[in-house]
């Protein structure tokens, strides 16, 4: 049984401009200890998917319209706030994109670090403080005993993300959701942070959902990858086949848009057009207007995620019909 099983998740935002269907019928699962990557452009629904699971969607304007998210037997979308609180921060932890603003600037790092321990495990404050120092040491912060008494502004961006990771991992969660954890950091620090997440994951057997728009990061880090487009899953497969044998024109186009060494001197491929406006009803495949393989059926028929290989899923109609070979 998978650790987390999301079925037909639908999240929308009711704004003045209309209903924005940010996540539209998304299903996936995560096994114990597994690393799942979710990639897609800005606004493709990767973050909203994970925020929906954590109950972090501001309602209103957001609304979870349907679906289930079974985490170890509990439906995260329909459980009581009390049940959800006992899961989030303890069994599912989250780290965010912007470490500069994700820590409370007015509280000591120590007080923030021990908070999950105090509320979930109800352990003694002094013991929690010792664990906080140890957690900072584990994420590679020098002089942790003193640093733990400092405030977030006394830490650099990379260090703050380490603190965030320490805070997320302090309860040894079963699942860590990392929402673009390295986007705001220098390239050298990015690698260190990813390595740190990997190490923490292996030590605790934690499953990780890594949200990213960096295909390189995902390729090197994840066991399986989910490609999202316009609030829907375009393609899902194990990392290797996903990159080696794309089964959706969008995924193929993304791969071609990556700069590689042998292309020196040639113009970089870009996908024409823009992602669709999600506040309007989309008929047919959302990628159709930008797709070079588009056929008439793509603009009319509803798309569905179907098996196209061993644990390989694609929502492309023409791939289903074996009309195109990517």
């Amino acid at each position, binding site marked *: 049984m998978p650790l987390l099983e999301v079925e037909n998740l639908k999240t929308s935002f009711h704004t003045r401009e209309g209903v924005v269907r940010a996540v539209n019928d998304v299903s996936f699962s995560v096994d114990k200890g597994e690393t799942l990557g979710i990639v897609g452009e800005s606004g493709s629904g990767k973050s909203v998917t994970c925020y929906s699971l954590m*109950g972090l969607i501001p309602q209103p304007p957001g609304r979870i319209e349907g679906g289930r998210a079974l985490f170890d037997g509990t439906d995260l979308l329909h459980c009581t706030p009390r049940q959800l609180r006992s899961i989030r*921060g*303890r069994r599912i*932890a989250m780290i*965010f994109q912007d470490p500069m603003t*994700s820590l409370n600037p*007015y509280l000591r790092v120590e007080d923030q670090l021990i908070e999950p321990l105090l*509320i*979930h495990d109800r352990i003694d404050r002094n013991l929690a403080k010792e664990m906080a120092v140890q957690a900072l040491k584990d994420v590679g912060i020098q002089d942790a005993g003193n640093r733990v008494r400092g405030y977030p502004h006394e830490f650099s961006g990379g260090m703050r993300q380490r603190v*965030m990771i320490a805070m997320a991992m302090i309860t040894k969660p079963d699942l860590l959701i990392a929402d673009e954890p390295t986007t705001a950091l220098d390239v050298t620090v990015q690698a260190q942070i990813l390595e740190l997440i990997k190490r923490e994951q292996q030590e605790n057997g934690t499953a990780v959902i890594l949200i990213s728009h960096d295909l390189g990061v995902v390729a090197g880090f994840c066991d399986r990858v989910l490609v999202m487009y316009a609030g829907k899953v375009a393609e899902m497969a194990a990392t290797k086949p996903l990159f080696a044998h794309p089964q959706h024109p969008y995924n193929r186009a993304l791969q071609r848009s990556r700069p590689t060494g042998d292309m020196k001197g040639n113009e970089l491929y870009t996908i024409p057009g823009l992602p669709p406006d999600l506040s309007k009803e989309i008929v047919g495949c959302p990628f159709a207007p930008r797709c070079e393989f588009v056929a008439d059926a793509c603009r009319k028929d509803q798309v569905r995620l179907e098996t196209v290989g061993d644990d390989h899923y694609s929502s492309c109609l023409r791939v289903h019909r074996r009309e195109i070979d990517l």
Partner: protein
Amino acid sequence: MVRYAVHRLLVAIPTLVVIVTIAFFLIRIAPGGPFDLERPLHPKVMEHLERIYQLDRPLHEQYLSYLRNLLAGDLGPSFYFRDFTVSELILSGLPISVQVGASALLLALGLGGLLGVAAALRQNTRSDYAVMTVATLGVTVPNFVVAPVLTLIIGLQLQLLPVGGWGKPGNYVLPIIALCLPQIAAIARLTRASMIEVLSSNFVRTARAKGLRESVTITRHAIRAAILPVVSYMGPAVANIITGSVVVEQIFSIPGIGRYFVQGSLNRDYTLVMGVTVFYGALIILCNLIADLLYGVLDPKVRYD
């Protein structure tokens, strides 16, 4: 922090000199003098009075001598209340003004903060709109309108509370309400705006993701950040309450400093007006300093050294 405070107090001296200078010449420009009565005094008496109070000397000499006395802590004798020095008058009014002003300020902070937080938590609902409508009214309607209206309705029509005077507990109520209403409004608006901003900030999202109860998220993480703008508003709030008290004390016949200030101006009691002006100026400077120091205590990013 001590060094910073001392530095700020030293910097305040030139500010006070400017205040003294402007006030000194402004009150002298006003027509009339302290000894003008309905029936003019005999010229000989007038001459004598002016010599005693040194009003016969050139203006710049009077100004310099005032500054010299001020340095020695001497605010001079009152021209109108004979046998009283200005310091005595200020000290006699001070406890009363402080009681009214401090109660108004504390009430404004408590109630304004509470209303602001409540409105922010129920953003864009009816209770939010109700609070903000009242707050906008409170900010826009001046207290020289609020005070007579309160007198008229609660004092005269309903006969619930005395319309003026001092000494009984009932005398406190209307002046304090008139004084704090605009401040409640201002602080509620300020708190609401900053609370809304903080509630959507990333670190509050982190707190929620940790599994904290919403009530703990708000009290432990959000409010502390949201009150910082209110702390910086403390200085202006004190200034507003002081100017408000000048009007309110007069309307409700409260024997505080504000009333001396109004009477002093009408009587051309030069030294009394000057004394109260200097006192108010120093008080506002001090309150601004306290607010800034408090800010440093609350925000770890701010360190004074």
